[in-house]
């Protein structure tokens, strides 16, 4: 048995979908913002295609969707500063932290595994 570290926060929001394929990412971020607005301590974990939301210089563009870049820029205002990224997923997309619009904490697989245990509630989008 490995020791479980103490709680990092109230809520872990896991984001696994890209910004334009569906509205899951945006609606997941909305849940995170509302929780933070109600004073909850929120962490975000970007996995898989969800990592692509963090890529720099995203436009609203002609797709008829608002995208999520503007929402991500507001995270700091909501005191959401724990942005976690799956390191394997990041490398799999050919990206490095310097390609991302916000400072993130890159996690290896063992650090990933512990995240659900150190938050009281996990919401997966």
């Amino acid at each position, binding site marked *: 048995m490995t020791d479980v570290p103490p709680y990092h926060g109230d809520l872990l929001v896991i984001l696994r979908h890209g910004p334009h394929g569906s509205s899951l990412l945006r609606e997941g971020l*909305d849940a995170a913002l509302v929780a933070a607005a109600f004073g909850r301590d929120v962490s975000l974990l970007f996995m898989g295609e969800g990592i692509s939301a963090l890529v720099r210089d995203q436009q609203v563009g002609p797709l008829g969707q608002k995208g999520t870049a503007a929402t991500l820029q507001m995270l700091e205002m909501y005191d959401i500063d724990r942005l976690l990224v799956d390191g394997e997923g990041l490398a799999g997309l050919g990206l490095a932290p310097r390609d991302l619009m916000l400072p993130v904490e890159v996690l290896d697989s063992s650090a990933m595994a512990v995240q659900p245990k150190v938050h009281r*509630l996990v919401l*997966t*989008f």
Partner: protein
Amino acid sequence: MRYAILLLGGPYSAQAAHSALRFARAVLARGHRLEGVFFYHDGVQNAARLMAPPQDEPHLVDGWVGLNAEQGVPLMVCIAAALRRGLMDEREATRHGKQGHSVEAPFELTGLGQLVDLGLGCDRLVTFGP
């Protein structure tokens, strides 16, 4: 144990809604408590009052309503996700100048703060989605 359900999948287009309803029944059959079902993302379409599936398929709205009638399970629908998708109760229909309404009690339109409270207030929040 106190359970709650977050449903993100739309009715009839994915397995999520069927599984969520079956899970809800199993939770109650085992003597656990179901603190609430929160409908979000495409899951809000499970609250469509006018849903009329063929008779040889499970009627999802009747299924959810039955949970509420028999066990008092709250059926909470995210208002922002619902309005975008044309789902609104009488009050919202009036407010938005629409004829007719598509959501009625026991489904209640509510905010995402309720989802967070529901999740933090139960032992297990189980998500059904894509």
